[in-house]
C-alpha cells in the first residue's frame, strides 16, 4: 500500500500487537487501517460514547485520529497518557462505527492495539486475579466462585454494599454479584452439565466450548445448548478458556498461548475436523478470527485457519418452534465484539422474524444496545449510561423480551432491566423455546 516506512505503535515489542488487521477489503497494517479514515464523520452518530459525551476525543473518528497521530509521532504517548487511556478504555468495542463506515474501518481493533501499546490492564485488580486464575489454575477458580456463591447467600455482598466497600474501584464489579451468580444450580441443568463434563465421550461428533458465563454464571444456558445439540450429535464439552478475555482486557501474548493450546487440542484429539460449537457471539467472532493472531507463525496460522473454519454458533443447532399468536414485542440485542452485521446476525433476524412476525421490533441504527462483552462489569461508570439508553429504548418499543447473542449481554441487560423496566427481561437466543 505505502512506499514509505510504516510506523508502528510499539516498534520494540511487536509481539504485543497484531501484525495486521482484518478488514472486508483485505488485511491491512494498523497504520494503513487508521489512515483509511477519511474523517467524513459517518461513524460519529453510531457511537454510543460520542452520543453521550458530544466530544470528539470520545468518537470513533477522534479515536482513529489519535492512533494515527501517535503512530506518526505527532503526539507523545507519555504526555498524553491520561486522555489516551480514557479514549481507549471508553471504547465499548461494539463495532457500530465500523458498520456505519463506508471504508469499514475497524476502530475497535485500533483501540485494542492502543490499549496494548499503553500497557497495563483495564480490569479491576480483583477481576484480573480471578480471570488469570481461570486461565492458569482452574481448580482455584472453581473454589473461588463457589466461595463467592456462599458469601452471596449469607449476605456478605449486601453487607459490603451497605458498608460502602463496593465504592472502592477494585471492588466495584462485585456489585453485580447478586445478579450474576445463580442462586442455585437447576438440578436438571447441573446433572446434564456434570454428565457431559465428567464422562469421557466416545467418538464425539461435536465439541461444545461453553463460554465463561455458560459454565459458571448461567448453567441453564449451557444445559439448553447441550440439550439441543445432543438431539443430533454426540457432544463433548471442553472447558478450555478461549483466550478472549486476555485478547480484550490483558496481554495479547497470553491470549495467543491459550488459543494455541485450544487449537492444538482440537488438532490432536479430533484431527482438526470436528465442529466446535460456542454459545457466545463474542467467542464465535474471536475464534473465527483466530488466524490473525498467528501471522508471524505460518504453520500455526494454517492450523488456526482450519480450526476457525470448524467453529459454529448456536444458530446452527437452533430449531425455532411456532409461538402463540399473542405475544409481547421481541427484539434482538446486537451487542457483539467488533461487529453488528454479518451472516450470523442476518440468520438470527430471519429466525426471529419468522417466529414472532409483527412482534419482532427492528431497531433503527441509533437504538442503543448493551456494550459488548461484559463491559458493564469492567467499567461500570462508562457503561451505565449506555445500558440505561438501551433500557429506555426497550421501554419505548414496549418490548417484553430481548434476545441476546451472548450470556454476558443478557446478564448485563437484566441487571438494568430489573431496576428500571422490570416488565422486560433479556435472555440468550438459545433459550428461545424456553
Amino acid at each position, binding site marked *: 500500500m505505502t512506499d514509505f516506512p510504516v510506523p508502528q505503535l510499539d516498534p520494540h515489542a511487536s509481539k504485543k500487537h497484531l501484525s495486521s488487521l482484518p478488514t*472486508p477489503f483485505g488485511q491491512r497494517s494498523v497504520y494503513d487501517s487508521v489512515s483509511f479514515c477519511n474523517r*467524513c*464523520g459517518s461513524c460519529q452518530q453510531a457511537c454510543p460514547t460520542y452520543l453521550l459525551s*458530544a466530544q470528539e*476525543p470520545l468518537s470513533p473518528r477522534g479515536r482513529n485520529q489519535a492512533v494515527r497521530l501517535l503512530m506518526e509521532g505527532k503526539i507523545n504517548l507519555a504526555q498524553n497518557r491520561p*486522555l489516551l487511556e480514557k479514549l481507549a478504555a471508553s471504547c465499548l468495542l461494539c463495532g457500530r462505527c465500523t458498520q456505519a463506515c*463506508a471504508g469499514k474501518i475497524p476502530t475497535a481493533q485500533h483501540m485494542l492495539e492502543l490499549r496494548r501499546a499503553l500497557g497495563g490492564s483495564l480490569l479491576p485488580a480483583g477481576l484480573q486475579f480471578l480471570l488469570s486464575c481461570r486461565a492458569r489454575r482452574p481448580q482455584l477458580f472453581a473454589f473461588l466462585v463457589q466461595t463467592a456463591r456462599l458469601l452471596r447467600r449469607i449476605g456478605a455482598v449486601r453487607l459490603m454494599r451497605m458498608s460502602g466497600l463496593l465504592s472502592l474501584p477494585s471492588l466495584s464489579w462485585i456489585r453485580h454479584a447478586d445478579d450474576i451468580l445463580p442462586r442455585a444450580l437447576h438440578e436438571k441443568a447441573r446433572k446434564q452439565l456434570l454428565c457431559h463434563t465428567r464422562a469421557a465421550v466416545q467418538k464425539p461428533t461435536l465439541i461444545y466450548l461453553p463460554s465463561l458465563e455458560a459454565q459458571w454464571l448461567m448453567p441453564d444456558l449451557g444445559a439448553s445448548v447441550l440439550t439441543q445439540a445432543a438431539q443430533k450429535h454426540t457432544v463433548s464439552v471442553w472447558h478450555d478458556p478461549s483466550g478472549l478475555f486476555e485478547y480484550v482486557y490483558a496481554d495479547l501474548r497470553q491470549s495467543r498461548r491459550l488459543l494455541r493450546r485450544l487449537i492444538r487440542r482440537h488438532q490432536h484429539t479430533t484431527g482438526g475436523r470436528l465442529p466446535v460449537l460456542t454459545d457466545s457471539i463474542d467467542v464465535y467472532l474471536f475464534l473465527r478470527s483466530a488466524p490473525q493472531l498467528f501471522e508471524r507463525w505460518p504453520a500455526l496460522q494454517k492450523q488456526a485457519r482450519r480450526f476457525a473454519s470448524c467453529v459454529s454458533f448456536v444458530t446452527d443447532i437452533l430449531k425455532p418452534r411456532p409461538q402463540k399468536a399473542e405475544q409481547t414485542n421481541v427484539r434482538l440485542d446486537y451487542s457483539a465484539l467488533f461487529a453488528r452485521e454479518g451472516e450470523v446476525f442476518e440468520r438470527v433476524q430471519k429466525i426471529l422474524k419468522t417466529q414472532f412476525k409483527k412482534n419482532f421490533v427492528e431497531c433503527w441504527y441509533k437504538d442503543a444496545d448493551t456494550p459488548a462483552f461484559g463491559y458493564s462489569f469492567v467499567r461500570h461508570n462508562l457503561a451505565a449510561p449506555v445500558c440505561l439508553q438501551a433500557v429506555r429504548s426497550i421501554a419505548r418499543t414496549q418490548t417484553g423480551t430481548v434476545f441476546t447473542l451472548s450470556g454476558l449481554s443478557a446478564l448485563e441487560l437484566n441487571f438494568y432491566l430489573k431496576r428500571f423496566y422490570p416488565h422486560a427481561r433479556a435472555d440468550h437466543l438459545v433459550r428461545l423455546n424456553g
Partner: protein
Amino acid sequence: MKIPPTALKRLRQIAGAEHVFTDELSLSLYAYDCSLSRTRPDAVVHITREEMVSPVLKTLYQYKIPFVPRASATNHAGSCTALNGGVILNLTALKHIRQINTQEGWAWVQPGVITGDLQDRLAPLGYFYAPDPASERVCTLGGNLAQNASGARCMKYGGTIDHVLAAEVVLADGTPVSVSRRQGGPDWIGLLAGSEGTLGVITRLKVRILPTAKHIKTFLVTFPSLADSVQTVSDLVARGIIPRCVEAMDQVTTRAVEEFAHAGYPLDAQALLILELDGKPAQIEKEEKELEEICLKNKAQHFIPARSEAERQKLWFGRRAAYAAMARLAPNVMVGDGTVPRSELPRALQKVRQILDDNHIVASLLFHAGDGNFHPQIVFDERNKPETLHVTRALKEILQACVDCGGTVSGEHGVGVEKRAVMAYQYDKPTLDLFRHIKQALDPRQLANPLKLLPVNYAEKARPAASPDARTAALADSVLRRNEVQAPCIPIGQNTRLQTTAQNTLCTQTLDRVIEIDKTNYTATAEAGVPLSQLVKALQQEQVFCALPAGKGSLGGAFCSGCMPDFYSHVLGLEALLPDGSCVRYGGKLMKNAAGYHLTRLFAGSQGTLGIVTRLTFKIFAQPVAPVPVLPFVQAPANALWRAIKKELDPNDLFPALKGEDND
C-alpha cells in the same frame, strides 16, 4: 497565538472548567474536518447551553482571540479548522429540538441537532424537512445553514437557505441578534446561509417543515450520452414537471458502483438517471406517462420504474453506495463540488472527465442533473505528498473549467480554506471587495472563523472585471460624482412605492431592457428599470412565466422594496452599483451557489440603502405560476447587522439613511 491565562480563567468560569480543553491531544483532535486542512487550535470550549455563547464571545472579543464554531465537522472545504489558532466552539451538545408546530409548519431547533434526527422526529407526524444533504445522518442543522447545504431534493424544494424562517445569532463581539423573514429589510438569513461561521455563531434556528408526500415513484433511466440525459431534464422542466430528485452518474461511476454494490444497474449506458416524482396519484400517473415519452424521445435505453418500496430502495442502493465504492479503494476521497448552468452540464462533465483522465486520476463522477451540480469523487492517499498535490491541482483545474462554463466553484460544500484561492477565478475585484467589506462590517476584529472564504492578496489574481454596458456605466459615473461631492441621492425605479417628491433622486428608468430569456436553463435576465408589466408581457410572448405580478413598478423596485419577499428565492444573480461607483456581479444562471456571501439576499429588501441593483437574473417557468404575494411598502426598521454593513459600505451616507428604531 497563546491565550492569556486570565482569558482561560474567564472561559472556565463561564463554561465550567470541565468544558474547556487545552491539552495537546484534545487540541489535535479538533484540528480537522473532512478536508485536507489541519490546524491545531489553542483551546476548545464545549458549549453546553445556548446562553453560554454570548458571554464566551464577549470574552474572546475582549482579549482579541479568534474563534471557530464547529458542530459535526463533516464539511469538505476546511470550514471548521482554526487557521489563526484561537478557540474552537464545540456546539454538538446543543442538540435539542425545542418545538415542533405542524399547524404552522415550523420547528425551533438548536444548531447541533442532527438533520436526520429531525427527519426521524417529523416522520411519525407526517412531515419532513426538505433539504437532504447526503450526510444528513451525521451533519447538523446549524452546519447546514452555515454551509447552505442542499441535496438531491434541491431542484424541487431548494436548499437550506429557503427553509430557515428565523435564527438567533451571536455576532463576533458577543451581541445576540434575532433575525427572521418577517422582519423586513435585507434577507439576513440568506446572508448567514453559507457564511461558514465568519459572521457569527448560530445559536437557534426555526426551520420550515412540510407535509410528507404520500406517493412517491422512482425511475431508473439510462441514456447513450450525457447530453441526452441533461436534455431529458430540460425537456421535463419545459413541460412543467419538476421531479423530486434527479440524480445521475456517468458510465465509469456506474461500473465502479456495480462492481461494489451489485445494484443491478445497466452497464452499457453512458449516463444513468434516477428520477423521483411525488404528489397525488393521478398527478404522478400523468407525469409518469410524460416522463416516459420524454425519455424515449431522448433515446433512453432502459426505463425501469420501481414497482414497490423494496424496488425503490434497490434503485437508490447503488447511488448511495457510490461513496463507499470509492472509499474502499484508497485512504482518502476528495469530493469536489462545482455547479454550472444546466445547459452547460454535458460540456463541463466532458471537460472534467478529460482532466481526470489526463492526470491519471481514479474518480467517480456523480451529478445532480436538475441543478447542474456535479461531484467528482477522487481517491488518493494523503500520506503521499506528491499525489496529494497532484490531485489538488487537478481539482483546481476542474473548478477553473467549471467557471469557464459560467459556473461556480461551489454548489453546496462551501469555500472554507480549500477553495479560497479559486474564488479569484470566479469573482472580480469589486465583488471580492464587497465580500471583504461585509466581513469587516460584522466582524471588524476578524475573530469569527478568520482567513476563510476570501482569497489572500486577491487584487492581482481576481478575475478581470467585465466592463458594464454604456447605460450602467453612465449611472455608475453619476453615483461616483455624487459620492465625490458627498451629494446624497435616493435611488428609485418607477417611484411607485416610495413616492418621493425629493429632487435628489437617481432613477434607473434608463435600464429598461430584457436582456435574455433562456429557455434551456429557464432563466431570464433583465435590467432593474424594466417595468413589471413590460417584463411579464415579454415573457408571455416567449410562452414562459415568472412569479412576479404584472402590476406597477419596476423589477428592481419589486426586488429591493421588500414588498415581495417570496420572490427572493427566485433570483439567481444580480449586478449592482455600490456607493463608491464600483460594479459587483454575483451568481447568474446557476440554481445553486455556495461560493461567498449571498449578495442577492443582501440587496433584496435593502430599499436602496446599500447600492443600486442594475440587473437581475431570475427563474422562469414553462407553465403559469401563482404570482408572489405583494406586501404594502414600509420603511423597514434597521437592526445591528444593517447598520454595521451600511456604515461600512456607505460611510458618506450617499444613499438614504436608515430609518426606524432598532428592532433587535
